[in-house]
């Protein structure tokens, strides 16, 4: 490995932080999945479902997702600009403070300190911490782009810039609140207005954390791992601008048939349908990149992670807009269908792409060969089967629950009590738990494989 002056220690630090929070988040996920059919697991207030669910979502979304993004971003930024990190000390501080913030987030949420706004549950002192962390990251992003040696900015850099800008706007606007104490504040917005701000945030934070930077990884690591150039540069330009334009209009599809003004809901439906186009622009770009080289699905262990990942992204971005349609939303909203939808995106798309990116990146930054391709393949199949069993089970449960809520007797009265609908889901919840265990084992294999990789002798030393 040539010494390029690149700083990879922070890349490595964030990658292993991501693995750590992934495992913690999944353990909590399994715990709350069990609580869903056995409430005896609500042992203490700290472990009750209402508090723990947000530790799961924040732990995986912020802990695993963001750490994975920071790891790959610090890597891609240096490689794509052919410039060492301008402020490695700042990046190191970013790494340590990030982990401290996630740990504090988990503890405060377990203590019931929560704003309740979905994916923005952290109270205001931690919000300020998150903003400071984001600024620390943004300074390195813009400094390296300004100092870069490579004239053109590659597609992945566009997505990283869009993420850096948009997440800042979303996070600050949605979290504005009036503090009561250090541990409690009240939202600046009220009622329908607050709901509108929250779901503009909620939808787009998913978009700009679980889509945009993951696409940055996809556009960078797919060509790297396969040795094939991206099929169409023009298609990626069109996809990028139309994606980031349309995304911001669609938050209100989370508020279908609520008291939010109807025109905002309708605009959101229209833009949601439109969003299929740019999303599939990236899907098509990915598939066509493999044109004539589909044998790589068998011969290159990384290719299948990327192709299955982008396939789940494609399914996700078809399913999402369809769920937003008023009639379908009336049936599916508030059921487990939506839970299945979210998890196809996170367990399928996000985790597959981050896994493959790490498999490509970690051996290169540490100067070691991957410990075991065989284990990587086992990891792939376990998380694929686990995820599919998980999401399909939840879709079935969602359809059943939606149907039971709407079922009426010939005289027009309701056929099922609420409890009938809930208890009919318990078999699905048991299957979901087992599927989650399968997935979790796959992730343990992943973690083991990477840990063993860095514990080996450097491959140079062996040669």
């Amino acid at each position, binding site marked *: 490995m040539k010494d390029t002056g690149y700083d990879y220690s922070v890349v490595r630090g964030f990658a292993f932080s991501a693995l750590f929070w992934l495992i913690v988040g999944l353990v909590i996920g399994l715990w709350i999945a069990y609580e869903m059919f056995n409430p005896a697991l609500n042992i203490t207030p700290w472990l*009750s479902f209402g508090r723990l669910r947000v530790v799961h979502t924040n732990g995986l979304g912020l802990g695993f997702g963001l750490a994975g993004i920071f790891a790959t971003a610090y890597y891609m930024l240096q490689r794509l600009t052919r410039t060492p990190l301008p402020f490695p000390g700042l990046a190191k501080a970013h790494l340590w403070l990030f982990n401290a913030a996630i740990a504090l987030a988990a503890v405060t949420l377990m203590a019931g300190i929560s704003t309740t706004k979905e994916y923005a549950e952290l109270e205001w002192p931690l919000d300020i911490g998150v903003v400071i962390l984001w600024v620390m990251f943004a300074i390195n992003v813009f400094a390296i782009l300004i100092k870069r040696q490579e004239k053109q900015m590659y597609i992945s850099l*566009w997505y990283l810039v869009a993420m850096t800008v948009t997440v800042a706007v979303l996070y600050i*606007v949605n979290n504005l609140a009036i503090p009561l104490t250090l541990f409690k504040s009240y939202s600046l917005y009220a009622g*329908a207005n607050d709901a509108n701000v929250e779901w503009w945030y909620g939808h787009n934070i998913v978009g700009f954390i679980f889509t945009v930077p993951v696409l940055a990884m996809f556009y960078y690591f797919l060509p790297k791992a396969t040795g094939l150039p991206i099929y169409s540069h023009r298609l990626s330009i069109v996809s990028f601008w139309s994606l980031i334009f349309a995304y911001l209009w*669609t938050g209100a599809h989370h508020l279908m048939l609520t*008291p939010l003004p109807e025109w905002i809901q309708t605009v959101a439906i229209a833009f949601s349908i439109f969003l299929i186009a740019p999303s599939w622009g990236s899907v098509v770009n990915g598939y066509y990149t493999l044109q004539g080289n589909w044998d790589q699905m068998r011969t290159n262990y990384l290719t299948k992670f990327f192709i299955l990942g982008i396939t789940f992204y494609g399914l996700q971005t078809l399913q999402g807009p369809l769920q937003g349609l008023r009639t379908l939303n009336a049936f599916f909203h508030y*059921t487990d269908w939506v839970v299945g939808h979210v998890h196809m995106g996170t367990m399928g798309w996000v985790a597959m792409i981050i896994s493959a990116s790490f498999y490509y990146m970690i051996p290169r930054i540490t100067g070691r060969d991957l410990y075991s391709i065989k284990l990587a393949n086992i990891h792939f199949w376990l998380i694929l089967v686990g995820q599919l069993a998980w999401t399909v089970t939840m879709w079935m449960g969602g359809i059943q629950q939606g149907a039971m809520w709407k079922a009426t007797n010939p005289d027009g009265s*309701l056929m099922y009590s609420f409890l009938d609908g809930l208890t009919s889901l318990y078999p699905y919840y048991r299957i979901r738990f087992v599927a989650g265990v399968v997935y979790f084992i796959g992730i343990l294999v992943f973690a083991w494989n990477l840990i063993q990789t860095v514990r080996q002798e450097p491959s140079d030393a062996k040669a």
Partner: protein
Amino acid sequence: MGIYSKPVVFAIVSALVILTGTVVTVFIPMFLPSTQPVSAFVKPYTAIEQEGRDIYMREGCHNCHTQTVRPLRTEVLRYGEYSKAEEFAWDRPFLWGSRRTGPDLNRIGGKYPDSWHYRHMQSPQSMFTLSNMPPYAWLASNRLDTSDSFRKTEILGYGYTEEQVQQQLAEYKSKVTSAGYDSKETRDQVTPDALKGELTEMDAIIAYMQKLGRDVKAMEAKQ
């Protein structure tokens, strides 16, 4: 070539692109009356109800219960009149939720007596064997902290004086601790002896439950 080699310009253009939809669907509606309609029938929460709401938030009840009845036939049959924007004028934050593991609560107020709630909060499984709701018996063992009650109503703009807040709390306390309280027997069963004469967190969250949807029911009764 173009903005793909000018990162600062690229960032500014990106910001403008993402702000377009934001301004039209979020920023402008903030100032439209349709997102914040008011109704003379919808009253702010009393101090005790607000304390209950804060406990509801602390325990993450919104993770399983929604607070919006949609204008769908079976939903209105199941829960009652569908939700109107006016009802939420005082809600900071909104608590509409996104998943119904448990039933919607926007019309729960007045549906059951307090005694139902005391028993159900203490042990949902004692009433519905197969319920998966966590038990909240320990709320009755926590004395309600009212030290910030006035400041809360002040920040939330409810317009009460400090005396009014103290009076609301005192009135509610004397209601639930009096011998004539209709749910006294159940409250005494779930509340530890030391707190029988005090306000507990359980009292507060039940006061909040009984407020939900009450104003709309009053409005319908008058119409």
